[in-house]
């Protein structure tokens, strides 16, 4: 693995993926080190905002040095990103964090659960486990994605990598309710679960994993400053004393963002 860097990347293309959701592809040497579940920090150019925005890698192309990133316009930084044109240079920090642990998935029944803007980072993961291009091939891949309504961004792409179930809040597609409702409705079984989404969903995932006797790896989110483990801004509570911090806190940016759900105080 190479060192982390702050580096200039070039925008290759950008499009509106869904209402308020953007899909951007950038060219950067950092792609060489990308793994599913890792993230980059993107720096706005607006000089009143100095911190990098943590955004997950949706897909990566190591050979061609490309990263695909899907993000929601949530505030001033992402609103600025949405204006970037092909050819434009942007500053990014990466590769950050530890991705999903793939090794445990070989030959196993894998369940991948995403909600809202937690959906995008799971695309590269689903692809890797389906195609085995990271040296690990799942026995089966089931994906459960939760959306607000019928605007099911990325769903068509997920379908290529296994069985996709959808939950929508308004019931317009798939199960009416959340991803756990969809899991129950379809009696989804699994040996290993990977999930990303809002905290209440992740708590549900951990509980569901316990119910069906699966192991769950979940990706957390927290406000970050440095992104590299130095500021201690982005901690989550751990059940046991953390090896680095010597208290019950782990740093999401460096020890995560993906954690074994059993290790966390959720």
């Amino acid at each position, binding site marked *: 693995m190479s060192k982390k860097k*702050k580096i200039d990347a070039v925008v290759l293309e950008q499009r509106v993926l869904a209402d308020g959701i953007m899909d951007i592809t950038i060219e950067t040497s950092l792609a060489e080190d990308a793994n599913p579940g890792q993230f980059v920090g993107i720096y706005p150019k607006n*000089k009143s905002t*100095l911190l990098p925005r943590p955004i997950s890698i949706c897909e990566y192309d190591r050979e061609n040095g490309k990263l695909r990133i899907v993000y929601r316009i949530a505030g001033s930084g992402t609103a600025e990103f949405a204006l970037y044109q092909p050819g434009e240079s942007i500053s990014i920090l990466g590769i950050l964090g530890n991705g999903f642990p793939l090794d445990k998935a070989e030959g196993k029944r894998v369940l991948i659960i995403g909600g809202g803007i937690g959906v995008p980072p799971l695309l590269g993961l689903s692809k890797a486990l389906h195609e085995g291009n990271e040296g690990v091939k799942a026995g089966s891949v089931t994906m459960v994605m939760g959306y607000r309504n019928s605007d099911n961004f990325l769903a068509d792409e997920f379908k290529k990598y296994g069985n996709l179930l959808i939950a929508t809040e308004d019931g317009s597609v798939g199960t009416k309710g959340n991803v756990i409702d969809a899991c129950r409705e379809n009696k989804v079984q699994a040996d290993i679960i990977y999930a990303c989404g809002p905290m209440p969903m992740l708590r549900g995932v951990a509980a569901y994993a316990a119910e069906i006797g699966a192991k769950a790896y979940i990706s957390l989110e927290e406000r970050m400053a*440095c992104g590299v483990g130095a500021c201690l*801004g*982005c*901690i989550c509570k751990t059940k046991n004393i953390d090896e680095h911090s*010597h*208290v019950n806190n782990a740093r999401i940016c460096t020890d995560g963002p993906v954690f074994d759900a059993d290790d966390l105080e959720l």
Partner: protein
Amino acid sequence: MNTAVTIAGVTFKNPVMTASGTFGSGMEYSEFVDLNRLGAVVTKGVANVPWPGNPTPRVAEVYGGMLNAIGLQNPGVDVMIERDLPFLKDFDTKVIVNVCGKSTQDYVDVVERLSDQDSVHMLEINVSCPNVKEGGIAFGQNPDALFEITKEIKKHTKQPIIMKLSPNVTSISEMAKAAEAAGSDAISLINTITGMKIDIYRKTFAIANKTGGLSGPAIKPVAVRMVYEASHAVKIPVIGMGGIATAEDAIEFMLAGASGVAVGAMNFHDPYTTINVIEGIERYMEEQNISDINEIIGAVK
């Protein structure tokens, strides 16, 4: 060209340090920065025992800076001695350990544990953290309390000490004088200014602790003013910080009276900031025909 400065008998290859709490133990940023090039690494505040810190959210972005209320999470001085100091010992840079505590005894415990550590060149005493309920800032906002704790700590230290002052006071000169009178070997300032951010849509505080410390370029003019006032109030050397982003900023602090400077929040904006500052200072010295960096310390009166 001489870029070395001497503060309380300790010589730094250049005046550029890291600000405590923004550079971890040095390890995290060693992926970006060659630590050998720094004047000093100043470590995150360490207490006698591990501290869990505050609940999250602990950080929030604001115009030209950020708020933080980490609450001095730290693994305790034993881990620092066993893990962080051995790591830092391998670099040709000075090491300043930032010390925090809730009571005078806490501080004394830490500095005593560190007194036989040769790899620790100075101790920076943080009596100005606005983010912990007890201790900390209570010492940093009252000149008498500052005098007492400084005096007590001085009795137990082998290394020279730097009292780190809080900007959240009416008179920084008075605080600087109290530290000097009690025997502090140097002072550093400014720690963060207490601030608040409210999320108007969620109707909550952006920081779980309600208030957080403001740092970054937004506070630079206040920091420069306080460095100027403090350095004119005392004879001991001053280490300046608060919003340093460029060599120009660092030089501004030195002209105002700082013998050393530290880069804090801007490490998060650009992990190479310290190196850029060091190189920029050298360029400035060349352009301005300054052969010794010491010439500019306090040169604007």
